[in-house]
């Protein structure tokens, strides 16, 4: 981890705007990323994370505003910017009928590598992905997690100064997720600056030195995780897991005294993004997690359980916890990250 205050920014985003037709995808955001840190961009789907990464990586031109990478403008010096960036897109951007080895050689060549250096870097990336022994198999035969690991390997072949990772763990098993998170830590230890976007607050909490919270195209908070948690003050989160969500239960909870906000989400299973729709939860076998934010969790807990019991809900588990990024997001927007 770095001393954030002492290190110069390697990426500077200033008043960045991107408009598609009448849709403002990114609405005047500003932040900087310091050399050597892991910076998280946390926000729900559709918040503007991918559009922001696409502008930093020169894929999209900003409608207005400016982005510089190591002092070079993405609009005026795109080639230089691209050379210093590694990008891991959210999609698995690989050729399924080619082997992992062939894919990595191709992407290495696209970044100007060749000959012995290319072979060394490909071997190194395969080692890091833990797939050296399956390098000659077609990517289409891999599991989702293995594909994700090769997707990352393709982004680090040229040893970029900055690695942009857009939701790199979507839809994979816990084992592969852990492997990827450890890989990101290791790359950072080797000196690589990382911009990591996710809507999984656990990942961002685990990895990032600083976090920007983004919603509806705006950065609504930025700072270290401790700084962000302090925004919530002394509020705690009462988390109740239910077999199903009875009609009117949320409204009843919101009416309780000392309750600041209430959200619900279908509890995600492994490899599941989670589904925010209450109706979907009610019709499925999945459980529903209701989260209540309150400064007086001791008193409110009994009321919450009482209201839910009265509504006919079957309570599976109750938990009271300190604020986390989820509760920060809840506090700032009044909704869950998965809404």
């Amino acid at each position, binding site marked *: 981890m770095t001393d954030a205050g002492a290190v110069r920014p390697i990426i500077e985003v200033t008043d960045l705007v991107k408009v598609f037709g009448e849709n403002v995808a990114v609405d005047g955001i500003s932040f900087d990323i310091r050399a050597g840190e892991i910076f998280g961009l946390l926000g729900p789907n559709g918040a503007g994370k991918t559009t922001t990464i*696409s502008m930093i990586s020169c*894929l999209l031109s900003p409608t207005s505003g400016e982005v510089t990478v190591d002092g070079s403008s993405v609009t005026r010096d795109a080639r230089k910017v*691209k*050379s210093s960036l590694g990008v891991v897109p959210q999609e698995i*951007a690989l050729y399924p*009928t*080619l082997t992992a080895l062939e894919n990595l050689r191709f992407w290495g*060549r696209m970044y100007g590598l060749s000959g012995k250096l290319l072979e060394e870097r490909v071997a190194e990336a395969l080692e890091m992905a833990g797939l050296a022994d399956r390098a000659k198999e077609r990517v289409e035969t891999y599991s989702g997690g293995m594909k994700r690991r090769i997707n990352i390997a393709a982004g680090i072949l040229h040893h970029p100064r900055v690695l942009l990772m857009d939701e790199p763990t979507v839809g994979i098993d816990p084992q592969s997720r852990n492997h990827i998170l450890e890989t990101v830590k290791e790359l950072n230890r080797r000196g690589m600056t990382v911009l990591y976007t996710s809507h999984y607050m656990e990942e961002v909490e685990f990895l990032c030195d600083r976090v920007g919270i983004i919603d509806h195209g705006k950065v609504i908070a930025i700072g270290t995780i401790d700084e962000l948690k302090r925004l919530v003050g002394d509020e705690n989160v009462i988390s109740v897991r239910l077999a199903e969500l009875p009609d009117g239960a949320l409204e009843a909870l919101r009416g309780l005294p000392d309750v600041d906000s209430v959200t619900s989400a279908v509890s995600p299973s492994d490899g599941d993004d989670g589904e925010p729709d209450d109706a979907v939860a009610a019709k499925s076998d999945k459980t529903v997690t209701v989260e209540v934010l309150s400064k007086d969790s001791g008193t409110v807990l009994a009321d919450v359980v009482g209201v839910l019991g009265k509504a006919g809900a079957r309570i599976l588990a109750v938990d009271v916890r300190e604020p986390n990024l989820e509760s920060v997001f809840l506090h700032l927007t009044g909704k869950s990250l998965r809404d």
Partner: protein
Amino acid sequence: MRWLTIGIKDLRVTVRDKASLGILIAMPMILIVILGSALGNMAANIGKLPVAVVNLDRGRVGAQVTDAFFSDKQLAELFAAERMTDPDEARARVARGDLAGALVVPSDFTRRLNTGRSSKLTLYSDPGRQISGIVFKSVTEALATRVSAASIAARTSAFYVSSLRVGDPSFVYGVIGKAVKSASETGALSAVEIVESTAARGAEISTLSYYSGAMSVMFLMFGAMFGAFSLVRERDHWTLPRMLMSPGSTVEILGGKMFGVFAIGALQFTVLCAFTSVLGVKWGDPFAVALVATATVAAATGLSVFIAAVAKTVRAVSGISQMLIQFMAAVGGSFIPVATFPLWMQPLHYFSVNGWAIDGILAAMRGGNAIDVLPNVGVLWLIALVFFALGAWRLRWE
């Protein structure tokens, strides 16, 4: 050399895809064999024969000969004749296979016949259309005989009426009849000689040869469709945006994609050419064939960029491509030879890549050289550039 890396990658991806290989290589092979065997030698001998008449004679007799192709009901049903003024151009068009034959009436035709001298009609025919040539020649010979008889009759009657002052018409008609009969028996009716000249220089094009060219061209268009598929699929699967996020320029990336389509087309044509050569197809001058093939593949490549730009999804690529390929194959002669179309339809083949490409290949098969196929090659490259420019302009990258 990113363009080369991209092109080689595309070639590798295509070769790994058995379904694509089946469509691009196996299908045309099967169709060439089936159509070439099933349709026999009918390809070049159906419908009205396209011929040209060039009348350089200012006299009455020349006009009578050439007018017969338009005014005589039977001849009009047999021939699709057109008037031309330049004998060299007529010969060139026969050489290119646009016409089955051409008749040239010399400038002194009437004058020579009127003064009792013989004259010559020049006939250009295409050895690649033997039956057409025989029909055209026999019709021309019949016309020449009619003209000779008329010439003798005119001179005979003029002699009796003006020199001997014979006023009885029945006497004159009797003498004319005897003169024509006598001329016929002694060969004097050959006052008009037919001079046959071979405009084309190659062998007859068999149906197998025809469909070797026609199907190869049609399936090169399928290669264009796969090229468009590849561009749109790479866009959807984020490999194209990922390339754009690498230091390569859009020119290098698009160049690489086009090189891939081009390389696949070149490989496809080479394999089909080799396969049909084993079956006995004579493609003609390798340089001329290579020029036409290269230009055709280029046109298909340009078309692939255009389709990728117009289509937003893989499904749309499929729909647009199928429509374009089938239209161009139908009007361009990939299914049935253009010469068999009704006259009003034949010019449509100029609106298709297939039409220009097949014309060029047939010219090479007939023995044409690189110069003979240059017009086709030029048009195909123009099509390639126009489609590419439109496609590159409208292409959505991400």
